[in-house]
């Protein structure tokens, strides 16, 4: 009997706690702070890249801590690189935390999954590095500071074609919108440039053995392998390819600009080629970029760290959002959305930002980098006019 009473009391207490939680959240974004949601993967497949993007956002918050005379508070939620978790995390941001705007996410799949939640809640979202076209398509509340997969796929396909390669193998990750999207755009552009795709491989989530795919590629005599993939896959993939005696060019998109790949693949990483958003040693960089590079390096600490492009994009995403809130003069979702859409030639670290009608930053320049002597080296700047 006593136990039953306890159970009833506990249930009542929990229900009360839940209701209390709802009550306090409804008034979120109290008078003296403006909340900005950071919607990023900190764990799971993309946990590594996601944390780097968060680093950039947090640093930006340190540099510009205020807007409209109020303090900006970052609310970081972990979407766990999982589309199911992503919707939960996004719902928490808009319903419980009552954020004025959202930044993120690393990984297009989770951004696409959460897109409708932001749209329905009329909370503007600013993607930093999610490059799949579907993130902003049909969603007037989603913007992004980076270029898109069709562009990126074209950049690498053109680069490969210019180098005289005609036979390519394409490898992508099953169920990863970023990877499959980029692979498809590469295929289309490469075939358009007169090349042929001689082999295709699909990598499974959490798989570490790529030898069978690579052996097929070896048998197909491909001269170049295009393998857009997460950093968890990349290092091991490159190393296994070289161990199998594949000596052709291995290339991919922006995710590969990450020290973890050189750490894992070691010498095997020499000579890989990738396209990215940004080069920290760019001589024509803006004042903002020149300020950002030393400042962020100090923030990261350690011995002259390489600045991941996603950190720079995270920094830009935060600054663009802050600028829009300033111009909107309020934290009303629609006002911020309109201000974002009106953004013109905003000078960021990764170049000037103007959004097109889809909410995508109009970027026509990609940086091509390679690995030489255990470091990422600038190789080429590719401009593509649409």
């Amino acid at each position, binding site marked *: 009997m006593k136990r039953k009473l306890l159970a009833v009391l506990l249930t009542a207490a929990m229900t009360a706690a839940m209701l209390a939680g709802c009550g306090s959240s409804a008034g979120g974004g109290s008078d003296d702070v403006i909340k900005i949601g950071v919607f990023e993967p900190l764990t799971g497949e*993309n946990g590594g890249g996601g*944390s780097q993007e968060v680093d950039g956002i947090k640093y930006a918050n340190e540099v510009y801590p205020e807007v409209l005379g109020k303090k900006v508070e970052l609310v970081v939620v972990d979407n766990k690189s999982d589309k199911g978790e992503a919707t939960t995390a996004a719902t928490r941001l808009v319903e419980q935390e009552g954020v004025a705007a959202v930044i993120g996410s690393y990984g297009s799949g989770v951004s696409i999954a959460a897109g409708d939640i932001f749209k329905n809640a009329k909370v503007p979202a600013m993607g930093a590095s999610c490059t799949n076209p579907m993130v902003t398509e049909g969603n007037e509340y989603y913007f992004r500071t980076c270029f898109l997969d069709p562009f990126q796929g074209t950049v690498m396909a053109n680069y490969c074609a210019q180098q005289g390669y005609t036979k390519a193998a394409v490898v992508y990750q099953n169920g990863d919108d970023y990877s499959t999207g980029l692979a498809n755009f590469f295929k289309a552009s490469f075939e358009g440039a007169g090349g042929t795709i001689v082999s*295709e491989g699909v990598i499974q989530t959490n798989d570490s053995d790529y030898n*069978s795919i690579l*052996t097929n590629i070896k048998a197909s005599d491909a001269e170049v392998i295009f393998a857009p993939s997460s950093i*968890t896959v990349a290092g091991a993939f490159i190393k296994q390819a070289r161990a199998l*005696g594949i000596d052709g060019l291995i290339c991919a998109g922006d995710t590969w600009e990450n020290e973890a790949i050189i750490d894992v693949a*070691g010498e095997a990483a020499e000579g890989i080629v990738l396209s990215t958003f940004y080069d920290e040693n760019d001589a024509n960089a803006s004042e903002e970029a020149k300020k950002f590079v030393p400042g962020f390096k100090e923030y990261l600490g350690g011995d002259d760290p390489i600045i991941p492009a996603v950190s720079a994009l995270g920094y830009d995403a935060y600054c663009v959002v802050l600028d829009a809130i300033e111009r909107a003069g309020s934290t009303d979702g629609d006002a911020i959305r309109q201000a974002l859409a009106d953004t013109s030639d905003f000078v960021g670290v990764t170049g000037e930002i103007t959004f097109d009608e889809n909410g995508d930053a109009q970027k026509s320049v990609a940086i091509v980098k390679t690995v030489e002597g255990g470091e990422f080296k600038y190789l080429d700047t590719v401009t593509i006019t649409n």
Partner: protein
Amino acid sequence: MSMDIFLQHLLNGISVGSLYALIAIGYTMVYGILLLINFAHGDIFMMASYFMIFAVVDFRMPIWLALPLIILLTIVLGMLLERSAYKPLRNAPRMSIMISAIGASYLFENLATYLFTGVPKGYPDIPWLTKVVNIGSISFQIVTVIAPVLVAAILIGLMALVNHTKTGMAMRAVSKDFETARLMGIKIDRVIAATFVIGSGLAAIGSVLWGAKYSSVYPLMGVMPGLKCFVAAVFGGIGNIPGAVLGGIVLGLGETLLVAFFPGLTGYRDAFAFVVLIVMLLVRPNGLLGEKTTDKV
């Protein structure tokens, strides 16, 4: 498909299969004794990889010193897991201890993500394992051929241990009948500890070979091998050590050859493993080498 490409595939398959076998032995032994599927086994394997990185990269130990040390550390971790998550539930229903195992698995994965971040780290280079050898147009790392040989040696050793030593006899007794074995004066806790020592030790050895071959270490690296090796153990007949080895090798070869002969099916590699599991459970629930369970009256 030319001959050398086929041989290359065969070699890949046997070597990944041997790695599966090493981890599958750990599953099967614990199941044999405790009737518990130790879901945290894959994560013990992951922790062993991080131990190696700390020993060699952060503490700058030579490999010959780091190897025994990480095997020891992994064994200690395995025993700690048994003591803290399984032993208190020894008399609880089997479902409780299973759930405890799942909890332990998540604890390890999230702890590792929190402590070491999700950014993959490179496994220290062990030259005598990672050196690439070329024979004709076939290329492979030395570890590729060491793995099956090592597995065979370990299998022979384990069989000798189980069939010809006192500890082995106690293990067999406990796996036959837990309660009666206890009544006969067998120290159950000691036998269980021995099982975890062997299982974790093999997970550590497996992690060294895995690290040399795949070189990428991250908190979720144990998830897929853990699942696949569980499939391998069930396939071979869970509770049966040679069965686990056989299951591992069949699974590794099957996965590889599926991709070799049907390149269009590369996306179904994992599906293959689990289809094998389902078919096996339907056709022969005791696995390839599993004993038929007879209900005692």
